[in-house]
């Protein structure tokens, strides 16, 4: 199947070549709009699975698609649901004849003006992460070329979404490491402050800090942060804190 230049652009943007950092909803919307533009359909809904594997409606090209998508999600039946579960295309060329297939979804979608739906999975390595509904107002099959292009669009978006998720995981990880580093810095600074204030070797000061934090029911870095913010202890609870520390220092045997 030949792809045109414009389509190529759309495909590689969906797959992640665009410069701005797109998030999942933005990619899903882009997919819906691309499908509307390039395929002979009247509406498109994009559904993605959450962590628990439940499909949720993420983007629509038009109101009609919202109704179709929501019907599926709320009743747990419909072409996108089937497509997602089987990771394969699911076609319904005439919803009027689909009562036995989807007893609640079919009549409701029909009542809203949808007549035919093709659902295609968003796949990566054989696994489905969601599905799209390609809705038409007239009965009849979707042309093969359109099915192929639709699947290619969906697969591109699957790549783009996977990249977005990987980037987000990476961001979270980086943030966790940064926080851990900052906390360590605070603990070491507070150790120095305590060591100087109570004339202790730094190893003892470090131990005292963690013991006091445990007694207070806080993390060492939280206690450390208070010290570093106000080393002179001039804040409201400063003097009380200092007294408690000196009591603790007096009551503990730091000789080996």
């Amino acid at each position: 199947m030949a792809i045109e230049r414009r389509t190529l652009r759309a495909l590689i943007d969906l797959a992640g070549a665009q410069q701005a950092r797109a998030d999942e909803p933005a990619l899903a919307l882009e997919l819906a709009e691309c499908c509307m533009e390039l395929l002979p359909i009247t509406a498109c809904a994009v559904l993605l699975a959450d962590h628990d594997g439940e499909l949720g409606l993420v983007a629509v090209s038009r109101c009609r698609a919202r109704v179709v998508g929501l019907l599926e999600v709320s009743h747990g039946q419909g072409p996108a649901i089937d497509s997602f579960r089987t990771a394969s295309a699911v076609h319904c060329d005439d919803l009027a004849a689909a009562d036995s297939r989807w007893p609640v979804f079919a009549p409701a979608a029909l009542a809203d003006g949808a007549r035919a739906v093709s659902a295609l999975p968003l796949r990566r390595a054989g696994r489905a992460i969601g599905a799209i509904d390609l809705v038409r107002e007239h009965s009849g099959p979707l042309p093969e070329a359109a099915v192929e292009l639709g699947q290619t669009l969906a697969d591109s978006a699957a790549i783009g979404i996977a990249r977005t998720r990987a980037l987000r995981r990476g961001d979270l990880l980086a943030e966790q490491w940064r926080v851990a580093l900052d906390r360590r810095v605070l603990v070491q600074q507070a150790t120095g402050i305590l060591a100087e204030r109570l004339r202790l070797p730094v190893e003892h000061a470090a131990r005292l800090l963690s013991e006091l934090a445990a007694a207070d029911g806080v993390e060492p870095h939280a206690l450390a942060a208070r010290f570093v913010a106000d080393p002179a202890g001039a804040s409201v609870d400063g003097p009380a804190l200092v007294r408690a520390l000196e009591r603790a220092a007096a009551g503990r045997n730091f000789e080996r």
Partner: protein
Amino acid sequence: MPPGYRQLYTVIAEFLDNLSPEFDFEDSLRAFAAECVNVLHCAGVIFLIADAGITAGWGEGAPELAEVEAHAKRGPGLECLATGRAVDCLNGTASRERWPEWSRAALRSGFLAAHAVPLLSRGETLGAMILLGTGPGRPGGDAEQLVSCFAEAAAANARIRLEELRRAEIVAQLRNGMTSRVVIEQAKGILAERGGQSVDEALVRLRDFARRNRRPLHEVAREVIEGSAEPPLGRLDAEG
């Protein structure tokens, strides 16, 4: 260029999908360069990623030429990196003057022309893609849009790779137990308490002292902690 771009799409999609840490980025760039050579009908393609120190080339003589550019620190790829703009070189006098070593090496390998485009990501130039040709015209011909499809995909993956590298640096810092950093942070705390200052101000004093006495920061910090160097501490206090 054939009317159908399916093959091109497949190549680019596979490259964009290839983010697994098991895959070596340099290898994946090299494979991508091979595909570029194929699709763009040029004699060689080189990818340069600046901060990662990566050069990946495909085509006879291309990897060697990349080495020459890296060694000589001059060439169309590096110029493209520096300016963030495309560089065209039809191996005339101009390029022989700008990049003498590169020009000589290119000619030796039979390359008569080069076209370098920047790998742009969010306003930054992360690297360059250099197309090499053995004919007189611009390598890649008029396929500017196709070239930018490849360049954008390379930039997108390069950005991710660079973010991973930066993250690995932070992790390495933590994992190494930040030994010298521990000492410096503790000394900051000690001096802050002693001088009734903030830890940031304490760092300034510590740095100034280290610089004036031409000693490494962590060494001075260690002495502060051990309380061993009393006269220097006295001096520190006196300087306030």
